[in-house]
């Protein structure tokens, strides 16, 4: 077992297809790292204790709460944030579905909701309504856009 810290240290990881090295203390969360060190502020901080899902990102293909994930635990891993979804200016099918179905109001939970649905559709391209509802069950939306979020997820599943 390798011990590192307690001071700030270099951590290398792949974020949205790019290899990056950040210099952060071992207690720094992945959420604060992508937001403050990398300037990727699309991922939102809401509860910072794993209750709301707003900070959901995809690590090695699986959706995780980035507020409960330490940056140091992501050494050598692949991290995808909301900023990494579109390709050549074209939105991901899930993002477009959110727009078409008005699957948000204030939009603060939206990046987390989108990442949860994207991760679901990669694992289960034939996802149905119940699957989508369960996939976003850990993503709170205080504006109450849930039914539109589920509709967007179902529509995206049909298109992808």
């Amino acid at each position, binding site marked *: 077992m390798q011990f590192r810290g307690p001071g700030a240290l270099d951590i290398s990881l792949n974020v949205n297809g790019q290899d990056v090295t950040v210099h952060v203390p071992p207690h720094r969360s992945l959420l604060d790292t992508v*937001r403050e060190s990398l*300037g990727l*502020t699309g991922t939102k901080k809401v509860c910072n204790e794993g209750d709301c899902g707003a900070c959901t990102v995809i690590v090695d293909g699986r959706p995780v709460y980035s507020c409960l994930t330490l940056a140091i635990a992501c050494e050598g891993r692949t991290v995808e944030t909301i900023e990494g979804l579109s390709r050549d200016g074209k939105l991901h099918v899930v*993002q477009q579905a959110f727009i078409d179905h*008005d699957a948000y109001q204030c939009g603060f939970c939206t*990046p987390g909701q989108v990442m949860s649905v994207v991760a679901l559709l990669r694992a289960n391209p034939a996802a149905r309504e119940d699957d989508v509802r369960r996939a*976003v069950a850990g993503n709170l939306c205080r*504006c109450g856009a*849930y039914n539109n979020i589920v509709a967007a997820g179902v529509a995206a599943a049909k298109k992808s």
Partner: protein
Amino acid sequence: MPGLRVLVSKDEFEGEIYTSTVIVEGNDLPAPKDGADSSEIGRARPRVDGRSRVSGTARYTQDVILPGMLHALILRSPYPRARVRAIDTKKAEALPGVRGILHRFNVPEIEFRSEKTIFREEVRFVGDDVAAVVADDEDIARVALGLIAVDYEILPHVVDLEEAIRDKAPKLTPEGNVFDAGSYKRGDARKGFKDAVVTVEATYRTSTQMHNALETHGAVASWDGDRLTVWESTQGIFEVRNMIKNALKMDPAKVHVICEYMGGGFGAKLGTYKYSLYASLFSMRLGRPVRCILSRREENLAAGNRSATLQHLRLGGKDGRIVALEHESWSNSGQGRWAANPTGPTNTLYDIANIASTAHRVMTNAGALSAFRAPGYVEGTFALESAVDELAAAMNVDPLTLRRRHARSAIDPRTGNRYTLKRLMDCYAIGAKEIGWSKRKAAGMRGSAPHRRRGLGMATQICGGGGGPPAYADVHFETDGTAVLRVGVQDIGTGTRTAVAQICADEIGLTLDQVTVRIGDTDAPYGPGSGGSVTLASIGPAVRLAANEARAKLLAAAGGVLEVRADELRLERGVVVSKGARTPLREILSKLSSSTIVGTGLRHPNPTGLAIKTFGAHFAQVEVDVRTGEIFVEKIVAVHDIGRIVNPLTAASQVQGGVMQALGFALTEERIVDRGLGRVMNANLEWYEIPTAMDAPEIVVRFVDTPDRKANNLGAKGLGEPPIIPTAAAVANAVANATGARVRHAPMTRARVLEALAIAGAMA
């Protein structure tokens, strides 16, 4: 200036009528006729800012990260009531990276929110501000908070509403804890009850609901030596500016407030709070940008709430009608200086001859209330509409029939003024059909299992939503033929940006993507705060006037360029159309070098002698598990009469959201405060249960969609608050229909349902 006049305008905000003196210029436009065709208004359009919201590029206050930015955190009282005798900051100051500390012994004299200081000598709730620390980063600031030693003299406290009312409770002011919050009389209630053949009387309770907007309150302030720029998550950029300039005694032009995107407010972000003052004071002192953003826990202690209420209602009935109504309420305002009066719906909703109502504000050692989406109306409607159903059952009248008998009047019973438009009977008809009301049985229905009962219930809402002046808009054209619309408002998630773009595009004759909207910046002329369901009805008519003027000027210019009379031209989807010729707008503007066409518009006053209200009805179908007390809401039908619908897609979203927040209020959301410690025990999103995707029932949204032509030139009214108002009562009435059990406390938790079932069983 020709055509300029000074008028008095009367506008409603949260159930109260306010009079203001406003300037008006020029003439208003006539409202569109029923069924008038429109290229944009009334069309379901995805949001114009959708791309930035789904891409993570929308910049919220939390996302403002400036070079050299410092971080401020707040030390909060661990006691519900205590005197701050001394504060020792030596150790905290010695910590490397700490740049400043503010507390009651060193803060400059600042008047804020009707108090003489921002740090009280007597802290009055767990979470009250004791000190603020600014440091190089959040970690350092947090350590510094722990190094501040405060000497508290602990004082007796009371946090519970019903405890605070009692004589033996600690008195929080020399006058006690209970204050008058308004009363109202119509007819003679005492005589009405004498005439009544049937009387029902009951006590209802609602618990404290927390807003929990996903973006917490917060601000980033940056002083450049001359001007203070504040990015704040707010529902009112101009209210923030005014409160900061008043508190810090600055010129308005020296305070610049920006809120491009904000992550929800629901009433709690009308105006600014102390965190903005700390960020501003530190930034002005240190010359560096300062961020001060609340944590989730702080949000649940010190950033507002919907008051818990205790309400007594008495209704008298005769010949299948309501002949008398009494309503007395007590609201736990915590340390707030006002009460969200629950008797508003009682006083205004139904045509009932004899009414008496009284409201009381109760002070406790809890965080101050703030407006929460239809403040008072949600709490009051739960009680009133439950009681109306109880009377209907006692008189053996269908509850919808009873309401119809009192809902026909076209006159506002409180003022005697005629409504500009009232289509409540249509709401009832549409909702009853959609939910299948004719299948309803007085004794409920069998559910999907032997231990499950099914029932239908409904309730009515009345709310303001007329908006009013002052509100301004301006429009100018870019040389490529696109228009830029500037409005001094903010989009709190309701779709304001999209709605004003539609109004502008429609009036000028452009496509939606040819209009760019600039909002969320106090460098624009004034716009109202987004509260009280006023935004669209205030700003929409001004946008229409600005766009109308811009179009007229543009066509005149086009006539000059094309050498055609302007009245032979019209604008369609960005193309100037004349007899036999179509010229894209950009071709015309490219011939005018950088000459700029600007149209301006303002909001004209509301009509005098008329009442502007929104109406609606929600219908609920529920199943109740009589073994566990669990309520399963299967379907909500929400029908609203809010005048003309500008965007059916975003309007339906607002209704869906209102229903979901109301289901939280109805079923699960409840602040729990330990009476002995005075602490909020569920100041987080784990134990304070807001609804999740798994809790969302089928929600059917319908609008009457008739322009309210007398209200304003758009024919539109507000929709922010109406859909949260009637859901809880509709669910309670459905539960009573299903089981015979009347749950008189929201949230209707399983324990409360089981208790009500036991009482109903014992009585049967």
